[in-house]
């Protein structure tokens, strides 16, 4: 155990945990931020994706010690302010099916849009290829991301 300071969604938390604990379990069990999901535990499905200093990471494979000092953003934080373009686009394109992979998909999309203002279809597909949706909503996810990108460019 050791005392660690984490910055999550703009708030600073001090926790006493094993520094090797995956960030996912700290977010879920300690902070009750349950949007990020356990899907595989080995960084393959993307359901646990959160942002660390704007970079998408698989929180099931990121030890909490690696997260110290970084600005951590989860879906709860991203959509805390009403009217995020990704939220509107997701609703507009009617993306959600079972919804379990969605928080991870959206966080991964948020990273892409933070990096690339005008992504092409292949940019989107390549960036999103590590986030599994077994309901098969990929075509809608793609449309939603392109739509949000357009809105963010004020087109």
């Amino acid at each position: 155990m050791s005392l660690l300071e984490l910055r999550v969604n703009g708030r600073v938390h001090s926790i006493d945990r094993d520094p090797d604990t995956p960030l996912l379990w700290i977010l879920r069990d300690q902070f009750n931020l349950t949007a990020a999901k356990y899907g595989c535990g080995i960084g393959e499905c993307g359901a646990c994706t959160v942002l660390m200093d704007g970079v998408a990471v698989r929180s099931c494979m990121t030890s909490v010690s690696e997260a110290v000092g970084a600005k951590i953003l989860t879906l709860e934080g991203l959509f805390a302010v009403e009217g995020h373009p990704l939220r509107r686009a997701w609703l507009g394109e009617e993306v959600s099916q079972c919804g379990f992979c969605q928080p991870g998909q959206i966080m991964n999309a948020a990273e892409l849009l933070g990096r690339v203002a005008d992504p092409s279809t292949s940019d989107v597909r390549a960036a999103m290829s590590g986030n599994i949706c077994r309901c098969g909503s990929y075509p809608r996810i793609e449309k939603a991301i392109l739509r949000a990108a357009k809105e963010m460019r004020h087109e």
Partner: protein
Amino acid sequence: MNRKSKPQTVGRRHIREDAEAKLKGRLRFLPDLRLDDMLHAAQLSSPLPHARILSLDLEAARALPGVVAVLGPEDIPGENRIGVIIDDQPLLAQGKVRYVGEPMAMVAAESAEAARAAVAAIGFELEELPAIFDLDQVEAQANEPIHEEGPIAVHQKLRKGSVERGFADADVVVEAELVTGLQEHYYLEPQGCIATPGESGGLVIHGSLQCPFYVQRDVSRATGLPQSRVRVIQTPTGGAFGGKEDIPSEFCARAAVLALATGRPVRLLLSRDEDFLSTSKRHPFRIRGRLGATKDGRFTAMEVYQDAEAGAYATLSPPVIYRACIQGAGPYDIPNVKVETRAWYTNQVPNGAFRGFGSPQACFGHERLVDLMAAELGMDPVEIRRINLLREGGETCTGHKLDESVGALETLERAAEASAKGAAEEEAHFEDGRWLFGTGHAAMIYGNCLGKAGWHMDGAGAYLQLHADGSVSCATGLTEFGQGARTVVQQMAAEALGIEPDQVSLMPVDTALVPDSGPTVASRNVVMSGNAILNAAAKLHERLAPLREELGDVSFRKLAGAAYKRNVNLAAEGWWHVPELDFDLKKGRGEAYFAYSFATQSARVAVDRITGNVRVLKVWAAHDVGCAVNPAGVEAQVEGGVAQGLGWALTERFAREGGNILARNLSTYHLPTAIEVPEIETIIVEEPHSQGPFGAKSLGEPVIIPTAAAIAAAVSEAVGAQVSEIPIRPEHVLELLERGGHDSNAL
């Protein structure tokens, strides 16, 4: 019944009622729930595929810190049995284990770590027995039978006319041997449940599941509690695809026994690895078939033998086998048909329900035969289907004369027309010379709901409570796990009452609210819940009629308020069951299902001549859904089904070695990603059925059924040789290329 001439809500696009909650991450899935005082469960799994259990020693595990209960088969208070149809499966293995991963004992502890440590401390001795691993070996079971009753778990036959006569009448006969592979559901949310002891001695179960009434029955059986003291509430469920039909019952029953033994809530959550290892898959099939036709392409006979691997227990093999058999010869009007379908026991994790229940396998069989025949006759694959597809007044392969709602031909014409335009835009990305292109088509028939074999549980309830402000609470017994059914239910309730959908609030599915509505499977939800809602709404309208007469043209809100003040009973329960079916189960003759959905899908592919890789460029999916209550939902279902069908056809190779599963994660089992799933064009065909609510028919399973067959046909056209096995592996494609006369060295 106050049905307006033109529907106001049904047929309009609706955003899912839970979309906002899902977007905010606020929907609480099972792993997101925390209960005070909750214990964590873990299971001891058999390391061997077939063995006698010589001893099981639980004492050392019981002595470990944090361990509250360690239970073996002797500690189950009720029956040590599980399962829906055939009574061959224990809740915890007793006497013998029959597959790697079969649970032998279970633990409840203060933490998940303590539970795992206790499992590791359980002592046991096993004596290994000879095992049967696949369909190649099933005939050898006489040595050491997996079950005393014999090697075949289920056997279904279908006979129409005389195939001997039919083949004698044929000018051309084609034959094929076909193979389809296993498929893992990989719902994103692994299996999980929480069992909580109630204050009055009963149990409340929360779970990620499809069939709360199955859970209620199996928990009651294992615990010895009456069903009335077992309440099951479905939590929002992160995907299921059939994998959460019967499977959750066993986890819920184990958690329930542990909760009763400890007097505390018990949570059982599977890791992804455990889920891969110990839950059901799609049955692999071996199909041998013959098709006869006249020179002008009219089918005279089809004969199909399907052998399926059941795994160690029968579980849901009966409905899979029934459906595969009934639909084994496809959506064609053929005078002479013979189908025989058997499921064989092996020492593998039981195969069970997976979207389509044997239909995608059956479809791969009949559609490959049809394409072979088209090739043999030099006929266009669309034309040969056009000649033989069922029409109104035609007879299905079980001899069921169809008087209405046969959209088969329209789906074919529209998919063929749309796909004829090709996918030029996508093709432009593939460099000249290296890639070969092909288009394929596949048609299917899908019997709605459970059919004759499951008729005894093909009823469903609904409950509508009208409030004084004109809003409505609505409960049904069938579940949502991503299909969008709740939104459709909301729309249908609104339409039936003449109000806006946002005035209808849906309750979670809870066995305490609605009578046993059977399982949420076989694309039953919209048809069954819709009809039950119409039944309940009719009762409300009848009770409101005198007031409506008295008050004249007032708003629904005012009418409800007035009715409330007059003590009118504003709660109504509805019920609907599938009409009686005249069907001979032994011969497979008659009305197998009350209604049928139809579809044709077309696929355009590019095949890499150097590597043998296949890329699907576009899929056109034309589905006869009777009535598209929510067209947005129809499109989402189609896209998802096609994506899963694409995976089954191309990427999802489920590797095993003996009794061990090698596919344990996404590195060893490849799901389609954003890169592989192409543009999918949904074409909605509406041939309403008189018994469907607003004419609606089943959709959720049909969407996956023809995809693999269409892709196989497209690859066959591209390479000039016929695909006979899925998943279509690159090395297989290279062989086919050689057979098709393509020399990759010439590139």
